[in-house]
């Protein structure tokens, strides 16, 4: 093996992004009815930088009483907001999109600090997509008559939205932009480990002059999320997170009129055929599972490689993984940042131990892990069968399970052998094979000779237990309209 030789080629001087562009206050309140306020019971929690374990701020923790207050504020605001001409709602959203662009450096650094992902990603992926998402849905606000849902489609009312920590601000954008464009008002709970960018977004709403109560932000834990979902004044529930919680939400809203969209887990198959360009496929595999430390619901976490090229591909892949730079997320050269929380690190570690115990063969990239913070080296498992836990359960970390196949039929059967159905990838030079395989994959998003590409115009969402409803594009309007 030439791994050692290869790694020594890449030596980079530190290139840290300055954190002086962001001013994090020592404490933050809940954002209800246009004001920052304390929680009714006065509870607070700390948010830390997962890369250093440094406490970034102390944040008010919403409880059921705060949820009630926020829903009432949103309900009150709904009347006027939904009655605004679409063109006026559009202009608020355009303002928000522009302010996000203006403040994107600040928000990127903030997100990297609170989430642990590399600045390269927040700067080049998260923030541009956030602004684009608001810009895209802004344009829909006065064109809803033409969206294919009949004339004058009506909003639902108050949207209760609960989002995860892996793309905090992007998930907020996916939720809030279509909700506001269609005339709904919002109560949104960011994840407990990443509340800051949502609170900065509250400030952006104020800068944009958004009417009070249209957007309410409630940092908190699962109990606050459950209270939002169950609240009688909520007409629409939008959730991105785990499949287990998604099922609980589906049970909670049963028998009500609440409209629900669920964006849940995945175990995406990334299928590499023997005619695929290896170097290109390796890059796609890497971005498929190591983008955002693999903490991505649509990650390509199952590599299905055609048996005849397994050795060649794995050699290339290991060589490439050995060159990934893990470390300070604020360093512009960093490829792999920190795991979002100690809980998530424990979950990943435990699943990887299960993988080893069940007999899969583990390989981890030879990289040094920082002494503080939450880190996990890029890891892959070979000798994986479909029965192995690491081939079935979502790990939500930088861990790739490698399986093999001989025929396209076998590849499709293995790819579809999952309770999930969110994403998949196909690598081959043969156009007809791409189309034939894509046609048979039971997954909501399929990337051919690429992976992990996102766009506000492109509907995103799962089959089967990966949830239902689509976010993005014209399709993304439906979940917020009474149609």
């Amino acid at each position: 093996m030439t791994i050692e030789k290869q790694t020594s080629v890449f030596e980079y001087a530190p290139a840290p992004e300055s954190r002086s562009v962001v001013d994090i206050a020592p404490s933050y309140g809940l954002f209800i009815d246009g004001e920052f306020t304390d929680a009714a019971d006065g509870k607070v929690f700390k948010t830390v930088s997962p890369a250093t374990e440094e406490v970034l701020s102390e944040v008010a923790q919403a409880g059921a009483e705060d949820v009630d207050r926020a829903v009432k504020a949103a309900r009150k605001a709904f009347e006027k907001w939904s009655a605004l001409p679409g063109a006026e709602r559009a202009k608020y959203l355009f303002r928000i999109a522009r302010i996000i662009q203006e403040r994107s450096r600040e928000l990127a650094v903030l997100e990297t600090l609170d989430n642990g992902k590399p600045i390269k990603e927040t700067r080049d992926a998260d923030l541009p997509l956030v602004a684009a998402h608001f810009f895209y849905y802004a344009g829909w606000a006065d064109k809803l008559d033409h969206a294919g849902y009949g004339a004058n489609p009506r909003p639902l009312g108050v949207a209760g939205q609960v989002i995860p920590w892996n793309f905090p601000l992007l998930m907020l954008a996916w939720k809030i932009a279509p909700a506001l464009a269609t005339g709904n008002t919002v109560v949104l709970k960011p994840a407990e480990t990443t509340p800051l960018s949502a609170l900065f977004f509250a400030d952006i709403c104020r800068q944009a002059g958004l009417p009070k109560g249209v957007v309410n932000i409630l940092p908190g834990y699962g109990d606050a999320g459950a209270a939002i979902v169950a609240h009688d004044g909520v007409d629409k529930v939008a959730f991105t997170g785990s499949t287990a919680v998604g099922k609980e939400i589906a049970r909670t809203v049963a028998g009500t009129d609440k409209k629900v969209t669920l964006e849940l887990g995945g175990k995406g198959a990334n299928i590499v055929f023997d005619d695929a360009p290896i170097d290109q496929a390796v890059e796609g595999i890497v971005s498929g599972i190591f983008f955002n430390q693999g903490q991505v619901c649509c990650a390509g976490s199952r590599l299905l490689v055609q048996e005849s090229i397994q050795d060649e591909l794995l050699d290339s892949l290991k060589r490439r993984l050995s060159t990934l730079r893990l470390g300070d997320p604020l360093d512009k050269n960093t490829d792999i940042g920190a795991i979002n929380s100690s809980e998530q690190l424990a979950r990943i570690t435990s699943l990887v131990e299960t993988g080893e115990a069940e007999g899969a063969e583990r390989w981890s990239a030879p990289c040094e892990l920082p002494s503080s913070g939450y880190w996990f080296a890029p890891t892959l498992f070979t000798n994986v069968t479909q029965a192995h836990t690491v081939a079935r359960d979502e790990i939500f970390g930088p861990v790739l399970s490698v399986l093999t196949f001989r025929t396209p039929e076998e590849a499709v059967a293995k790819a579809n052998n999952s309770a999930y159905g969110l994403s998949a990838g196909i690598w081959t030079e043969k156009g007809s094979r791409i189309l034939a395989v894509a046609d048979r994959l039971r997954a909501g998003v399929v990337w051919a000779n690429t992976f992990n590409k996102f766009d506000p115009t492109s509907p995103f969402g799962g089959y089967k237990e990966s949830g239902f409803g689509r976010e993005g594009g014209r399709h993304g309007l439906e979940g917020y309209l009474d149609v």
Partner: protein
Amino acid sequence: MSDARLSVFKTYKLYVGGKFPRSESGRVYEVTSRKGEWLANAPQSSRKDARDAVVAARKAFGGWAGKTAYLRGQILYRVAEMLEGRREQFVREVADAEGLSKPKAAAQVDAAIDRWVWYAGWTDKIAQITGGANPVAGPYFNLSSPEPTGVVTVVAPQDSSFLGLVSVIAPVIATGNTAVVVASEAAPLPALSLGEVLATSDLPGGVVNILSGRTAEIAAPLAAHQDVNALDLCGADEVLAKDLEVAAADNLKRVLRPQPVDDWTADPGTHRLTAFLETKTVWHPTGSLGASGSAY
């Protein structure tokens, strides 16, 4: 002499996997007209019958979803042709089931046949109104297409034994789903007769499976079944609908909640088609022809 002829009764049977079994339980229940006259002994399906129907529907799914939209349209149209041929029978059954006069029953049956024709025409158009290319900001061809959700359990309306029934089955299968249908509990005979029509319309066995019996008894195991992908609660009452929706959450079935239908003859719109579709979006790199630029 003809006045004295004894008519031949029909033994009503389930329609599962293209065959006409009795309930494995051996049970039947009395079906009466609105006036209380005995009409037939209908099979009273068990949970085992429900599971068998799911197996048949799953087996049929790949083939049905994989047929061209054009061919599905041809087959659905064939169903309408067969219905037309059996029009008098359905008028009689609907009149008995719903206590309607012959002309009113005939209007229901005519509307049902027309409804089937309407959905037959949708098979190769729905993708064009629900899918399409998305203008992503990058060198990719990005295409969204609707695909059938899979095996759909349909709790048929209790009141409208034929027009309502047709209005909930046709949209499910038009897009390539397969269906397990729980017929109206009190008025299952038009549904069971529909099975006979489907069996002679080139519709592959298992695409539609029809069960009669106690709605709650049959629907509960279907709502909880891990190999059912979606649930149309049309004919479930409020209490049952909630129970079934809770059970459906276990594998995140798509649930179409009951919505009041005042008039089954009204334009149904497309929501019953779109309720059981998944959107698949595929990204294809478009690459580049190089730096030489346009030839224009």
